[in-house]
């Protein structure tokens, strides 16, 4: 509400500096931009600026610790297209980002439906089962690193004890094994997020509708599809898109478990960009180009998400 009628200004013959500021601050647009400025300054300096700087760096051969670098046009991007490790990285990222999602969604949905039932210690269990998503991923990945250890893995020990295998499984020893292991750890980490989001959505399902459908003779599966699913559909779509974006742009789990190995065969965009740009060769330009190859996919996913959120709001 603006409380600076023109009369007030006219009445006062000479406004003091203080009063003038006060009147000015009563205008909503002025105040709005003032309030937003701290946030926008941080976002412009540390998000927008590096984004455009990244595009520039990706067009140069800049190295870590050296100033400048020569403009090389699209050379970094072209070289990457012919790089077999990068090609593998693209495939891995799509497997990692997209194949894990249906598992996380189905397991999360199932867990949410279970946690929505009434049983003793429900709140304790609900809190405890969210832990994989809460704790630092780098640290929980260390637990997985040991669970996958070639010598000390308890999985191998158990399977040997049961007589199912002869020698230890090399969980991280080959590309196929390592990718499956990475995906399992990612599913472990992501399932609680889906569960909790869907569980919140389930609270909005009208109970009377369920009862009415039950009286009409619908069994629980029919009721799920007719009554529950339409209500939680929006949440499922949005959660899924978020999860794809986050997994696609992941870093820590792969960094801790395989560092992209064995033989650079399990990199995803994030870890390969780190290795090219910071860790190994220090080729900042190349690393920035690897990161930016993610951009088209992220842009498409973000556009879909934004459109969907808009349509839900309308």
């Amino acid at each position, binding site marked *: 509400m603006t409380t600076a009628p023109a009369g007030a200004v006219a009445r006062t013959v000479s406004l003091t500096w203080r009063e003038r500021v006060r009147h000015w601050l009563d205008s909503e647009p002025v105040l709005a931009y003032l309030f937003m400025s701290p946030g926008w300054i941080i976002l412009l300096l540390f998000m927008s600026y590096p984004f455009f700087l990244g595009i520039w760096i990706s067009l140069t051969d800049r190295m870590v610790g050296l100033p400048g670098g020569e403009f090389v046009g699209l050379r970094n991007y072209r070289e990457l297209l012919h790089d077999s490790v990068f090609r593998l990285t693209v495939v891995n990222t799509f497997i990692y980002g997209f194949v894990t999602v249906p598992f996380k969604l189905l397991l999360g949905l199932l867990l949410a439906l279970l946690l929505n039932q009434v049983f003793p210690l429900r709140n304790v269990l609900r809190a405890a089962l969210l832990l994989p998503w809460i704790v*630092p991923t780098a640290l929980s990945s260390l637990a997985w690193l040991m669970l996958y250890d070639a010598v000390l893995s308890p999985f191998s020990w158990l399977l040997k004890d049961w007589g199912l295998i002869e020698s230890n499984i090399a969980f991280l020893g080959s590309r196929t094994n390592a990718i499956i292991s990475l995906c399992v750890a990612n599913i472990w980490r992501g399932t609680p997020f889906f569960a909790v989001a869907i569980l919140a959505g389930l609270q909005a399902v009208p109970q009377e509708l369920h009862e009415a459908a039950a009286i009409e003779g619908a069994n629980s599966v029919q009721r799920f599809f007719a009554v529950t699913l339409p209500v939680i559909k929006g949440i499922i779509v949005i959660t899924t898109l978020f999860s794809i974006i986050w997994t696609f742009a992941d870093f820590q789990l792969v960094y801790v478990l395989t560092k992209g190995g064995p033989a650079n065969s399990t990199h995803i965009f994030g870890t390969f960009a780190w290795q090219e740009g910071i860790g190994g060769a220090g080729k900042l330009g190349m690393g920035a180009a690897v990161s930016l190859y993610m951009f088209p996919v992220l842009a498409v996913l973000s556009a879909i998400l934004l459109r969907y959120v808009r349509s*839900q709001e309308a």
Partner: protein
Amino acid sequence: MVGSNRLSNRLLFLYLPLALFTIFLLFPFYWMLIISLKPNSLLLNTKVNPLILTHFTLEHYRYLFTNTDFPRWAWNTAVVTFGATFVSLTSSILMGYALGRFRFRGGNLAGTAIFLAYLIPPTLLFIPLSQVVARFGLYNTYWALILTYPTFLIPFASWLLMGYFRTIPRELEECAMIDGASRFQAMWRIILPLALPGVLSAGIFSFTLSWNEFLYALVFMGSGEMKTIPVGTVSDLIRADVFQWGPLMAAAMLGSVPVAVAYMFFVDQYVSGLTAGAVKG
């Protein structure tokens, strides 16, 4: 007979799957805990069942505090977490208030931009951002993280708080202002207290995300004594191929406790905040 039928149904369709989920989701934590307490002699013995703890020792925890920089990492993590949370929360309350309660040109555009900023992942920015951090002379200082973490905290927190501020009727502050309160008094005394659950959610969210962050901490503050717990544990306790599993798991336990505790106390705020953000957008 109906009763026992119901019970077996519940066993099969509720308790059994719940038990499987519990094992799947909590087993890594169980493993973390028992390894952190297991004497080295047992830990490396592949003959005995690794899943049970027959003797326990605190030697790994002692090692962590006397032979590594863990206490320093914990201090670094705390400084960065509280700093980044403070910066983010302050900017987000103001941003959320502006977006949620003021009518102004460009308001919708600003809201959309904030939403899109939330979708930009650190892996897209960390290489050029390392150059920006170095250019501003922030490399390997706390400010490197205190100022960069807000880039992924502010968008979420502002979006969340915008939602909270919007639900509070405008008449409330208009009445207060008619009664003689200034706009800032109305905001501070009336609106902010009503939005407190949202502020709390945003705060817990910022706290956990800052505490858990890895990539920026690794690249901008990853050398010498300036490591955070996740970075220090991953890079200093794994030397070449010698894995000090006991101290590693002890560090993983201790590094997870603060967020687990923060979250246990505020699980309902956290969940409502999480879904408000993730679900309403």
